[in-house]
Structures are given as C-alpha cells and as structure tokens.
C-alpha cells in the first residue's frame, strides 16, 4: 500500500499538449525528442532541444515534473546520438530519463548521476529478478510495468522490490510484450526497436474496393471496413486475421485500456504512479482524459471511490470500446 499520493503521469506529444496536460492537472508529463531516440517517432511530433527546455520551465513553474523518454535501442555505430539525447535531457533540467537500452542506461548512470533513471516499459522488466538487475547495475528508481501483469501480480511484485512502479491506466493497448515485438519490421522494415515507430504511416494505404475500404500495411490487408463505417489506423496487431478456420481480431480487439475503475486497486497493490498513454493524441483528448483522471485520483486519495471515470471517458477511446486489460486475469 502506498502511503504517499500517487502521481499522475501524462503524455506530451507537442509543446501545446504539454501545456494542456500540465494545466489539466498532471503531476508529471513525459515527452521525447523529435528523432528515433523515442518510441513515438511520428512526423510532426515531439520536441526540439529548445522546446524541451521551455517545456521544463513551464511545467516546473506550475509544479509539474518532466520525464524525457529516450526509450528506444541505439543503433549500431550510432550510440552517440542516444548519448547526446540523454545529455540534452539532463541539461534541460528534466526530472527523469526513461530508458530501456543497456547502452543508454549505462551512459546516464555514469555521467548524469543527478537525474533520476526510470526503466521504460520497453525494457520488459516484469519479474523481481529483472527489476533488481536494472536497479543494481544502473540505479533505476522506478519501473514502468508491462501491461501484461494482473493486479495480484503487481502487488506481489511491489512486495518483492525496492523500486517504485508506474502502471498504465488509459489509452492504446499493446498486446505483445513491449520492446520485444518485431511484427512491424517484418511487414514494413521499421519497428519500435529499430526506428521508434510501429506500423509506420508511410506504409499505410486505404484502398477503396467493391467490398469496402481495405486498410493495408505494406500491402498486407490488416482490416476491411464497410461503406459508412469509420476507418481505423491499421496497427498490425489490432487487425482481423484468419486462423484455424476462423476470422477474428486474433491478437486483440481494437479496444483501449481504461483502468479508471481500478485506481484504488492499484494503490492497494503498491503502485506509485499512474500513466496515461497517448503522445500521438491531440490537446482536446489529453485535456479531457487528464482532467477525468485527476478527479478520480483525487477522490481515491481522499478516501472515496473513483468517480465514474468510465462514463466520463467513454467517448475518447478508440472505437469507443474499453477494457481493463490484463489487470483482470480473464484477459489471458
């Protein structure tokens, strides 16, 4: 059980969204640089070095923290790019660096002892042994938990480790273990680990065909929509496939995570911080989600039940369908 207040950690894809998140009540915001050093490397997204410094000033001025994601894996012969990004993050006055690669963790631990090191979900550290390894070698202070753990498993984990934990509570759900998935590079040549992207936009095509609109990735049909149906983005693992004689959303239904109803459960399980996913989402979305979770978290910290977060946020989820994900064991 955490006795201190849980932290609300919110996505900041651009300077404008950072300001919106802070003003909506975020305790901390997380962001990345405009290159492959972070796992949301989309066109038009993220921060320049100056924008980060300005964002840190703004956030600190409003009492919020800034965490910089340098959470992809450095490329062969180009490790310096990632090291420089870590240096820039430290110089900007940010409060923590979120990393996954041994090379990046080692560089920060050796050269920037004053900045907190958080372990990214991309490091896929889901056992006490793995987490303690990172803590012992790099002085990691917090681990972002993979979304595959149930509440009981999280509680057991917190009892077994000294490091803080941060759990996702809202947003897009990755069904595969993050940081160890190459589905995207198999189809498109680009992946989270190689390039900081998944199902990259330049390989997306929407083809109007007689039987509807086909959403394809590198020519592989990911889904098909009838006329009048809203189309979705063809993220590989959210598609419809044929296996064993059945057609279905085999890997995951296109739902998103909403664990708003589990805030007190997560607090009871010893979680330090709640994380909202969505650096690629707009200001409107982020403001609304952060405000709702701020309200819910404040209610729980005051000893009450979480206000009806489900209802507040139903409109904001992908395909307007939600799940509490792996936190409930029946997800498996």
């Amino acid at each position, binding site marked *: 059980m955490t006795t201190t207040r849980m932290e609300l950690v919110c996505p900041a*894809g*651009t*300077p*404008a*969204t950072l300001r919106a998140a802070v003003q909506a009540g975020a305790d901390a915001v997380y962001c990345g640089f*405009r290159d492959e050093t972070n796992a949301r490397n*989309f*066109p*038009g*997204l993220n921060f*320049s070095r100056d*924008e980060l410094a300005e964002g840190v000033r703004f956030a600190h001025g409003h009492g919020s923290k800034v965490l910089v994601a340098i959470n992809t894996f450095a490329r062969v012969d180009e490790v310096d790019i990632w090291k420089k990004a870590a240096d820039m993050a430290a110089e900007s006055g940010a409060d923590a660096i979120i990393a996954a690669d041994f090379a990046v963790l080692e560089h920060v631990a050796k050269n920037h002892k004053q900045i907190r090191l958080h372990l990214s979900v991309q490091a896929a550290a889901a056992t006490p042994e793995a987490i303690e390894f990172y803590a012992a070698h790099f002085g990691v202070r917090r681990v972002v938990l993979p979304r595959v753990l149930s509440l009981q498993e999280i509680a057991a984990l917190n009892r077994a480790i000294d490091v803080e934990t941060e759990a996702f509570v809202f947003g897009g759900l990755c069904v595969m273990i993050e940081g160890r998935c190459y589905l995207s590079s198999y189809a498109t040549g680009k992946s989270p680990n190689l390039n900081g992207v998944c199902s*990259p*936009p*330049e390989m*997306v*095509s*929407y083809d109007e065909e007689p039987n509807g609109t086909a959403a394809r990735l590198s020519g592989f049909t990911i889904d098909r929509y009838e006329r*009048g149906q*809203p*189309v*979705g*983005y063809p993220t590989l693992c959210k598609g419809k496939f044929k296996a064993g004689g059945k057609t279905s959303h085999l890997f995951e239904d296109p739902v998103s995570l909403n664990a708003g109803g589990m805030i007190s459960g997560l607090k009871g399980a010893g979680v330090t911080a709640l994380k909202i996913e969505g650096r*690629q*989402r*707009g*200001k*409107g*979305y982020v403001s609304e989600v952060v405000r709702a979770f701020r309200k819910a978290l404040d209610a729980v910290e005051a000893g009450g039940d979480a206000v009806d977060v489900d209802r507040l946020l139903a409109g904001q989820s992908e395909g307007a369908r939600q799940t509490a994900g792996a936190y409930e064991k029946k997800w498996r």
Partner: protein
Amino acid sequence: MRSPNAEPLLPGFVRRLFPTVAGLPLGPLLTLSLRSLAGRRPGLFERLGEYRSACFGIDPVDLAFAFRVVPDGQRSSVRVVSKDNTAGADVLIRGPLLTLLGLLDGTLDGDAMFFSRIISISGRTEAVLALRNTIEDAELRPSDLLGLHGILARCVDTGVLGTLGAARRLADNSPGEA
C-alpha cells in the same frame, strides 16, 4: 434529392466570409498570409520538416473550387484550382468547409473527423500526420493567418470564430437535415 447521410448545407451568408480584400484574389491573398505566418512562427514549419515541400490538396465540398497548398515556409504557395485539378497532390483533404475550418481553429479533433469519415483524407499518410501534428501544436487563430495583432486580432478572432460558431449552429439546425 439529398441523401439521408449528407452533411448540413452551407447557408449562403457563410460563403460571403471569403473576402477579396484590397482587390487581391483569394490565391495570392492566402499565399501572402501563409508566408507571413512563416515569418512570425518559423517553428511551425520546422515541425513540418520534410513535409513542408509536399503538396496538399484542400477541397471544400461546398465551394465551387479547391486549393493546392505547399506550406514551404517563406516559399509557401496557395493556389485556387478547379475541382478536377487536385490530382497529383501528395495529400487530398476533402470535406465541408466549416469542418475544415474547425480543424484549423482546434474546435474539432482531426482524428475524430478523419476516422468518422466526415472528412476524407487520401494520399501519403505520413504527410497527413505531419500536418495534423503541426496544426495541433500550432494553436492557430484566424488572426495568425491574417497577420493581425492586439485589439484588431481579438476582434477578428472573436468575430470569425464567433461567426463560425454561429454558422455551424445554423447549419446544424437547418430544417430538412439528416
């Protein structure tokens, strides 16, 4: 006979929102606006990155013409073209004028509009994303585009946004809509 799923028709007075100020035709006027914006807010065009040299076809379905926009900073260009002259654009964005303007002023969310098919977007998805993320961060107001400041800016913003808001409400409430 209008189909049951058609979007609201644009009331006549909204069409008169488009000025021809100082005798300049629309294309050159918007070109100068965009270049002036580039001077005042270079960060926007840096954010667009390589996609600033892409050609964006904007087709408001309720106007008789369309635009070809190349948002290349101080070398930006906006050309008014006929509807069948949008081929060859890297991205084609088609939709009701009010909805398109709503994207610009942040009233409407690009994702929601795109995925619900009120706007249709085709072409290079990565250029679309770059544009969308840049507009999201830009927090543009009409005064930005017209290069106005201070009290005049506030009047125009309230006026145009207010008019847009009124126009939207009018359009939504017009009789005979789906």
